[in-house]
C-alpha cells in the first residue's frame, strides 16, 4: 500500500519516536501491559509499517465487493440504516404483543422474540420442568393459539421477525408460517430469522434437546425447506453471541462461529445435495459487541472477509450473495453490571457504536436493568433511543466503513483474522466442529478464557467501573420488572382449553406421520406444519424428536 520511500521514512521516524517515548516512560512505575478485553496485547502506535503488505483492492476494497471487508451493501447505511430490532418477550402472548406494538410505535423497525425457558427447551407450560419458569424469561408459547395472540395486528408481510429459538426452531417457525397464512400472507412474502444454531448450544448456551448429529439433520431440513418454500426467510443465524457471553475471547467467538458455519454448509451439501448458491445467501450470522471498541470493529470486518473466502474458495460458491456475511448484533449482556446499573446505558451505547462502525445489518441494544430482570418499558425505550441517537444525530451513517485505512484498525483486523484461521485449521484437523465438540475442545477453550478474565477482574488487571473500581458505598434500589405469578396459571388454563377443543384424532395422526418422517430421511417440516395446524403442542412435537433421536446430556466441562 505504500512506496518504499514512505516506509523508509516511517522506520526512521518510528526510531526517533520510540527513543523519545522510551525516555518519557522511564520515570513511570513498573511496566504496564496494554491489552484488549480479550487480552490481546496492543502496541503503543501503529504506522504504515503495520499494514505494509495489505493490498487495497484485495484486502480492503469497496462495499458490496469481494472480500466485503467494508460491508455487504454497496451503499452502506446511506441506502438503508441498520434494523432497530429489540429482543423482546415477557409473560403471556398478550403481554408480549402489547410490548411489540409499543416498540413499533416508538420507531422500532423489526421484531425479535424472546421465549421463556420452557418454550426454548421444548416443554409445555404444564410440564413439571416448567414450574416457576413460565413467562419469566420471555414469552410462553405452547400452541398455535398462543402464537396467533402474539402476532395479533402485526402485519407479517411488512415486519420481519427474528426468533431466538434453537432445539424447537422447526416448531416455532411452523407456527409463524401458519399464523401468516391465517393473516392471508403467503410464505413467499414473509421474512425473518430463526436462530436454529445448535452447535453453539453444545459449545456455549446449553439450550439443547437431542444429540448433535440429529440436531444438525433437523437444521438441514429447515434450510432445505426454506430454500424451496420461504425464500425471504433466514433459516439459521449462526451465532457467536452466546459463545462470547459464555466467556470466549473475540478471536474464539469469530473462529468457532465460522467453524460452525462451515459444518452447516457442509451438511446441507452432503445430506441434501443442494447447490451451495441456492441456500447460502439465506445464511445469517449473529455476533456480540463487547466493551473493547476497536477489537469489536476489527472482529466484524474480519468476519466478513473470512466468510467470503470460505464460501468462494472452500465451497466454490459462485454467487456474490453466497459470499456475504450478513449479521445481527447484540450489545454484550455480560458487560453489564449489577452495581451502579445506570452506567450500563453508557456501556451499551459504546458497544452499539462499535457494531455500527463494524457494519451490522441489525442491532439489539440491552437495557440497563437486565442484570436484575427482564427490562421495563422505560429501560427498553432508552435502549431503543440509543440506536436512534446513533443513527440520526452522530453522523456515523454518512460514510461507509469510516475506519478503513486506519493503521491500527486494519492491523487488528488482520491479526484477528490470522488468529481465527489458526483455530479453524485446528478444528479441521480434529475432523470438523462436531468432532471438536465431542472432544470438548471449544468448551474448554471458552472455560479457560472466562476464568482468565475473572481472575483479571478480581486482581484489578481489568477494570469494571462500579465493580472493582469507583465502588459506591451504598446504592439506591432501582425499579425493575416483575412478572405476575398469575401468568403461569392463566397459560396452563389456555393450554388445557386448546387440548379440550381441538380435533385430537388429527393431532395423533399428525404426530404419527411426523414420527415416520423423523425415522426416514424425509424433510420433517411438512409434518411439523401439519401438527401445528392441528394445534399439537410444542412439547408433543418435541417429544417425538426426543423419542426418535434421544436426549443430550451436559458433559459438564469446567
Amino acid at each position, binding site marked *: 500500500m505504500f512506496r518504499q520511500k514512505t516506509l523508509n521514512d516511517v522506520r526512521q521516524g518510528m526510531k526517533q519516536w520510540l527513543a523519545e517515548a522510551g525516555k518519557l516512560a522511564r520515570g513511570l512505575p513498573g511496566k504496564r501491559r496494554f491489552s484488549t478485553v480479550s487480552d490481546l496485547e496492543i502496541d503503543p502506535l501503529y504506522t504504515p509499517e503495520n499494514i505494509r503488505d495489505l493490498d487495497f483492492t484485495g484486502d480492503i476494497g469497496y462495499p458490496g465487493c469481494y472480500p466485503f471487508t467494508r460491508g455487504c451493501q454497496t451503499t452502506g447505511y446511506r441506502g438503508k440504516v441498520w434494523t432497530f430490532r429489540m429482543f423482546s418477550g415477557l409473560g403471556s402472548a398478550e403481554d408480549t404483543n402489547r410490548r411489540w406494538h409499543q416498540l413499533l410505535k416508538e420507531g422500532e423497525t423489526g421484531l425479535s422474540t424472546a421465549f421463556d425457558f420452557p418454550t426454548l427447551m421444548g416443554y409445555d407450560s404444564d410440564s413439571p420442568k416448567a414450574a*416457576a419458569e413460565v413467562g419469566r424469561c420471555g414469552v410462553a408459547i405452547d400452541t398455535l393459539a398462543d402464537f396467533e395472540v402474539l402476532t395479533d395486528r402485526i402485519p407479517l408481510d411488512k415486519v420481519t421477525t427474528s426468533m431466538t429459538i434453537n432445539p424447537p426452531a422447526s416448531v416455532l417457525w411452523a407456527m409463524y408460517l401458519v399464523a401468516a397464512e391465517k393473516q392471508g400472507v403467503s410464505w413467499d412474502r414473509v421474512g425473518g430469522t430463526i436462530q436454529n444454531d445448535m452447535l453453539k448450544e453444545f459449545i456455549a*448456551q*446449553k439450550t439443547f434437546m437431542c444429540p448433535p448429529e440429529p440436531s444438525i439433520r433437523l437444521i438441514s431440513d429447515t434450510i432445505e425447506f426454506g430454500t424451496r418454500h420461504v425464500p425471504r426467510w433466514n433459516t439459521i443465524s449462526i451465532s457467536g453471541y452466546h459463545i462470547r457471553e459464555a466467556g470466549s475471547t473475540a478471536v474464539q467467538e469469530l473462529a468457532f462461529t465460522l467453524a460452525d458455519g462451515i459444518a452447516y454448509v457442509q451438511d446441507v451439501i452432503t445430506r441434501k445435495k443442494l447447490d451451495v448458491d441456492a441456500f447460502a445467501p439465506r445464511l445469517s450470522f449473529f455476533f456480540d459487541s463487547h466493551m473493547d471498541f476497536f477489537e469489536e470493529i476489527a472482529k466484524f470486518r474480519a468476519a466478513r472477509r473470512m466468510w467470503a473466502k470460505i464460501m468462494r474458495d472452500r465451497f466454490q460458491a459462485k454467487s456474490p450473495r453466497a459470499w456475504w456475511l450478513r449479521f445481527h448484533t447484540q450489545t454484550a449482556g455480560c458487560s453489564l*453490571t449489577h452495581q451502579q446499573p445506570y452506567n450500563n446505558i453508557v456501556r451499551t451505547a459504546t458497544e452499539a457504536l462499535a457494531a455500527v462502525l463494524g457494519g451490522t445489518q441489525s442491532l439489539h441494544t440491552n437495557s440497563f436493568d437486565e442484570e*436484575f430482570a427482564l427490562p421495563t418499558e422505560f429501560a427498553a425505550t432508552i435502549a431503543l433511543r440509543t440506536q436512534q441517537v446513533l443513527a440520526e444525530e452522530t453522523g456515523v451513517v454518512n460514510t461507509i466503513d469510516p475506519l478503513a485505512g486506519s493503521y491500527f484498525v486494519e492491523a487488528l483486523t488482520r491479526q484477528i483474522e490470522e488468529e481465527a484461521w489458526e483455530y479453524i485449521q485446528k478444528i479441521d484437523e480434529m475432523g470438523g466442529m462436531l468432532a471438536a465438540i465431542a472432544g470438548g475442545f471449544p468448551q474448554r477453550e471458552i472455560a479457560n478464557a472466562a*476464568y482468565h478474565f475473572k481472575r483479571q477482574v478480581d486482581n484489578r488487571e481489568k477494570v469494571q467501573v462500579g*465493580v472493582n473500581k469507583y465502588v459506591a458505598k451504598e446504592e439506591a434500589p432501582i425499579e425493575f420488572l416483575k412478572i405476575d405469578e398469575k401468568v403461569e396459571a392463566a397459560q396452563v388454563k389456555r393450554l388445557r382449553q386448546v387440548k379440550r377443543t381441538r380435533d385430537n384424532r388429527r393431532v395423533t395422526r399428525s404426530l404419527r406421520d411426523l414420527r415416520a418422517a423423523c425415522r426416514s430421511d424425509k424433510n420433517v417440516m411438512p409434518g411439523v406444519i401439519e401438527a401445528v395446524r392441528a394445534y399439537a403442542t410444542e412439547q408433543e412435537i418435541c417429544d417425538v424428536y426426543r423419542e426418535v433421536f434421544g436426549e443430550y446430556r451436559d458433559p459438564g466441562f469446567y
Partner: protein
Amino acid sequence: MSPEKKLRVLIAKPGLDGHDRGARIIARGYRDAGFEVIYTGVHQTPEQIVTAAIQEDVDLVGLSCLSGAHRHLFTEVVKQLRENGAANVTVIGGGIIPPEDIPRLKKAGIREIFLPGTPLEKILAWTRKNVKPAK
C-alpha cells in the same frame, strides 16, 4: 484448611437455563483453592441435585440460576435436603437475583447469596469461615 480434610463442594445448575459461565468459574475457583468439586452440568431438577449431594457426600451445595426461577428452585433444594436427612449441608446461591428476594431466600435456609461481580476470594473466604464438614 488442613490438607487431610478437604471440604466437598457440589456446584449445581437447577432449572432450565443454560447460563453456566458463573457456575463453571465458581467450580474452578473452588478446585484451584484445594476443595473437592463436583459440577452437575446444566438442567438439573432439585431431586437430581439432592441425590447428587447425598451420594457425593458433600458439605456445601452452590446453586446458580439466571432465569428468575431461583425462589422456587433454591427453596426446593433446601427442603428436599432436609427431608432426606441432609440438613447439615450448607446451601449457597448466586445469579440474577433481585435484592428484595435475598431475605426470603435466607429465611428459607439458603445461607448466603452472592451477586454478580463478587470476587472469587470473597466466596472462598466465606466458605472457609462458615462451612463445616456436614458429617
